[in-house]
């Protein structure tokens, strides 16, 4: 087990700069998730740590060793691929034991370790089978077994669950969490699925265009996003955004929307100059049906356009100030409703830079 450090890491493919000045410190035993939109450089980052891509600049340090120019096999890491990349011509046991065999581990010792891994992952019955004779979930577990068995310093996962169906994905997510608690191996986990990131990770790294947008605990990212990008990326359904202008900045922060309707954020965001354009961000779960406790100026009203029943609760789409807001509420299509805004949970962003104000 070890710490992992990226120091001003750059990566260019031809003229395309995929990663720019990435700085990241991962503690020993920590579980870090990399998230971000497609093409933002998550896989590239992981592959540089693995040694499958060279760095164009900067350094990668695992433990105390600068591994930037070491080949993959000397980095003492293991990786689980999205496609699992199991060797089709080897049995499950051979797949899992291959890395050990290459390192000259004794045959009996390999058998022991493979057995142990198979035990943990419930693969004992299928050890003699070839990958094509396995179910998707079993293949996924074999890929994990192959990574675990060597007891590497770092686990790297590149969207390991995205080829599984929804139910299995939830199950494996729990398995991975349990495994990490047992093994406490430093883990870097790339995913598209923010629920996965939120539930698994100690810290989440949000990437965008080859840069880190924000690093923090799931709680921090959810509660205090540094930018509109992070705010929109974390949380589901996505945060609602409304363009507005600050029109009264003395004692309270009052906003006017394009259609002339208004909202007061109270004392939460005082200090902005009047006339400043802002983007208001408010999560669906922070909107409620306005009741007597909601001040008149902390309400947004609109017409319900669509309802999406999810079983446990319902999402509604409400047209407010010409934009669609999503709220976690029950209502009927066509209802004219007033939404109460949880003012302390509202976020303001600079429309130009996207940064949190």
């Amino acid at each position, binding site marked *: 087990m070890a710490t992992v450090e990226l120091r001003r890491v750059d990566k260019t493919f031809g003229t395309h700069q995929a990663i720019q000045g990435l700085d990241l410190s991962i503690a020993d035993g920590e579980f870090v998730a990399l998230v971000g939109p497609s093409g933002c450089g998550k896989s590239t980052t992981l592959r540089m740590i693995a040694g499958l891509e060279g760095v164009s600049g900067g350094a990668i340090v695992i433990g105390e060793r600068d591994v930037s120019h070491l080949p*993959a096999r000397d980095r003492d890491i293991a990786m689980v691929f999205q496609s699992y990349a199991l060797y089709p011509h080897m049995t499950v046991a051979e797949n899992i034991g291959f890395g050990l065999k290459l390192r000259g581990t004794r045959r009996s010792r390999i058998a022991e370790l493979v057995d142990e891994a198979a035990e943990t992952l419930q693969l004992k019955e299928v050890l003699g089978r070839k990958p094509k004779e396995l179910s998707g979930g079993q293949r996924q577990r074999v890929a994990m077994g192959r990574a675990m068995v060597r007891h590497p310093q770092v686990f790297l996962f590149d969207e390991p669950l995205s080829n599984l169906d929804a139910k299995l994905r939830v199950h494996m997510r729990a398995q991975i969490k349990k495994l990490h608690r047992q093994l406490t191996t430093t883990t870097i986990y790339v995913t598209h699925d923010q629920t996965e990131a939120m539930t698994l990770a100690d810290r989440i790294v949000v990437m965008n265009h080859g840069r880190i947008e924000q690093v923090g605990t799931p709680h921090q990212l959810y509660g205090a996003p540094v930018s509109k990008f992070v705010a929109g990326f974390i949380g589901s359904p996505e945060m609602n955004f409304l363009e507005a202008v600050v029109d009264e900045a003395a004692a309270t922060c009052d906003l006017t929307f394009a259609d002339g309707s208004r909202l007061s954020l109270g004392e939460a965001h005082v200090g902005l100059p009047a006339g400043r354009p802002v983007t208001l961000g408010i999560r669906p779960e922070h909107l409620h049906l306005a009741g007597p406790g909601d001040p008149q100026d902390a309400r947004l009203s609109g017409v319900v356009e669509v309802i999406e029943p999810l079983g446990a609760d319902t999402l509604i789409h409400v047209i407010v100030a010409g934009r669609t807001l999503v709220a976690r509420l029950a209502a009927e299509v066509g209802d004219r409703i007033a939404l109460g805004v949880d003012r302390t949970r509202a976020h303001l962003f600079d429309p130009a830079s996207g940064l949190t104000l």
Partner: protein
Amino acid sequence: MSMSSAPRSGSLAPYLFVLPATVLFVAYVVYPILYVICSSAYRWDGINQATFTGLANYIRLFTHDPAFVLAIRNAVLWAPLTILPQMLLGFAIAYMLETGVPRQAIYQAIFYLPAIISPVVVGIVWQRIYNPFGGLLSDIGFASGLRFLTVPFLSDTKVAIYAVIAVNVWQWTGFSMLLYVAGLKGLPTETLEAAKIEGATLRQTIVYVVWPMLRHVHLTLILLGVIGTLQTFPLIYMLTNGGPNHATESLPNYIFLQAFKLQSMGYASAISVVLMVIALALSLFQVRVLGARFALAE
């Protein structure tokens, strides 16, 4: 995507991987090409001192050599008369096989069988088939009254070249079939089903869907067929040795004759150069202009 940017133990690896192939390529392809080009400017019997004669070999080849003209004529006949039947027959067989018949593998093996038999064997066997005295065809001819089957196929200057071409078709149709089978297997089932749903008849399906979608196979077969035409040698050597009176001469056979029977290494080299130029020009035309490829599936 390449792994080139990944850190690796030594960037010597690719060079070590291609080294043996490169050595052989240089020794047995590059060097021989340069060698024939040089030696085509000499008069040389392969043993004694060679005399430099400049372009004399080429002048003789293009102006005073009826055998060369016959060899060229034969190549011009040979290409379409082998390639087209082999393609059409090969496609027909492959299509019938691929649309479902019992024991497909056996038929496939039978049609491909001639392609794996040595030209020595093919030559001697077909000599016997074509033999006007007790050969298979003449026996059939006499028994059935079809007198045209009793002609001396291989020693009649008018017929011999077609007789040899027929053997070539027999030998290589199976190869075309094999490539078409592979090509048909690669066709997306949905497209064929879509054609069916749109009400295409069998003929329409073949003409408008299947045949056009196998374009890359056709191009490969034409490319290989043209090159094959220009290399046709062992079969002719065994069947007729270019005779009678050069009626079935091919450029390769003529090179061999000049080099090893008449000991004119220089002249044989000049023919070799001409042959290579023709082959490269035709192949490059097909690859560049028509988009033909050697890749059998890609």
